[in-house]
């Protein structure tokens, strides 16, 4: 028991020590062959990237696939990575490009799953979320779920050039400068697209505002 607790302590200590390490350091360590460093990068970004791609695609399985592919690309391009940008910018750019490519490919082949917009990632029931047991009353929960479905649907119907910066800004809370770098457009363009996206979204969600 004593040994077990000491291992757990060690694990916690290692995790805490990793928390203090910058992404760039982790990348350098990965380049040097430290697999634990790459695992830490995955641990840091797996949820944000999955959530981001999910909001872009409205398809959970696809989002997971693209998130994994994103990390594979990062790993495969370790030697080419420059520390000019934050790692988050780099990984979001890769995820964005992969998601957009896939969406365009599906659009060409008419593979877009409209039902995925309404489907939960844990089953086929039409629910955006898993409501917490200790949450509001059932009616309120249903209303909230319906509202979330409507919001997800509205985002999904935004044109791609508005949808991507909006998600990066209002859901992922990325800075304008970073979004501009991710999308390779000017900061002014990002601002105007986000403003336009919000205006479009407001029109679509007027009933819920």
């Amino acid at each position, binding site marked *: 028991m004593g040994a077990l607790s000491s291992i757990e302590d060690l694990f916690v200590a290692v995790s805490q020590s990793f928390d203090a390490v910058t992404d760039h350091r982790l990348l350098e360590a990965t380049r040097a062959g430290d697999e634990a460093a790459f*695992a830490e990068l*995955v*641990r840091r970004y*797996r*949820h944000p*990237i*999955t*959530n981001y791609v*999910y*909001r872009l695609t409205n398809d*959970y399985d696809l*989002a*997971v696939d693209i*998130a*994994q592919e994103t*990390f*594979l690309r990062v*790993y*495969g391009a370790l030697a080419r990575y420059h520390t000019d940008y934050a790692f988050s910018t780099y990984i979001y750019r890769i995820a964005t490009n992969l998601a957009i490519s896939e969406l365009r490919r599906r659009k060409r082949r008419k593979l877009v799953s409209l039902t995925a917009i309404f489907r939960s*990632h844990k089953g086929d029931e039409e629910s*955006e*979320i*898993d409501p917490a047991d200790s949450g509001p009353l059932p009616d309120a929960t249903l209303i*909230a779920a319906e*509202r*979330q479905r409507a*919001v*997800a649907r509205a*985002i999904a119907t935004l044109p791609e050039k508005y949808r991507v910066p909006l998600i990066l*800004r*209002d*859901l992922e*809370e990325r800075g*304008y400068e970073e979004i501009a770098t991710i999308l390779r457009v000017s900061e002014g363009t990002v*601002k105007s697209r*986000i*403003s336009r996206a*919000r205006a479009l*979204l*407001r029109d679509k*969600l007027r009933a*819920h*505002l």
Partner: protein
Amino acid sequence: MTECRRCREAIEATLPKRAPDERVRAHLSGCAACRAFYAERLALVELLRKLPRVEAPEDFEQGLQTALVTRSRMRPLRLLDPATVLASLAALSVTIALLLNVRWSPREKILSTHHDEKAVPLFFQDRIALIEPTETKTVKHKRRTVRARAMLNRPEIVAKDFAVKIAPVIETEDDPLVARVVEARLLNEAGEVQTMRIEPVSFGDETALKIIPADPHTKQQ
């Protein structure tokens, strides 16, 4: 009006995180329209923030690990490897050739053209030639050149144009078509055939011609 525009730009820029600065707040206190705009934007951003965050599945790392192992086993493609470059160029050439319907075609007229009652007019590629049905002719391409043709311009062998009396039936080995002359219509897919041997297989009213692609190295009968 300009103040309103600046105020709204500032509101857009600060959302979803920060509160508007003092200058914006001062404007809002005196402008109902901008207050309404701000309230609407706040409500919208709040709606977006209430969307639940989706997490990666528990086996995410495991799947990633498997994919990494699988890919590391694959031989990496060396883009600047000369063999790879040559192979890529060859593949590209073939693709372009297929797209443009490139075919090797003879530059010189290759069939005998003397008119005879027994001669069989033959449309070969885009030219007409006459050939005596009782003779074995070997069509050889003395010189070849690449000619890209549009699909619509693909030449045809029209069997209907064979002399009915002489060759009522046509058989091709590469395209197992056996038909009455008046009905047969052979698209010249055989444009890809470099050498063609034409020989009679029977005589009389049921005279048939057998058109087969022949190996140019095969000894002529």
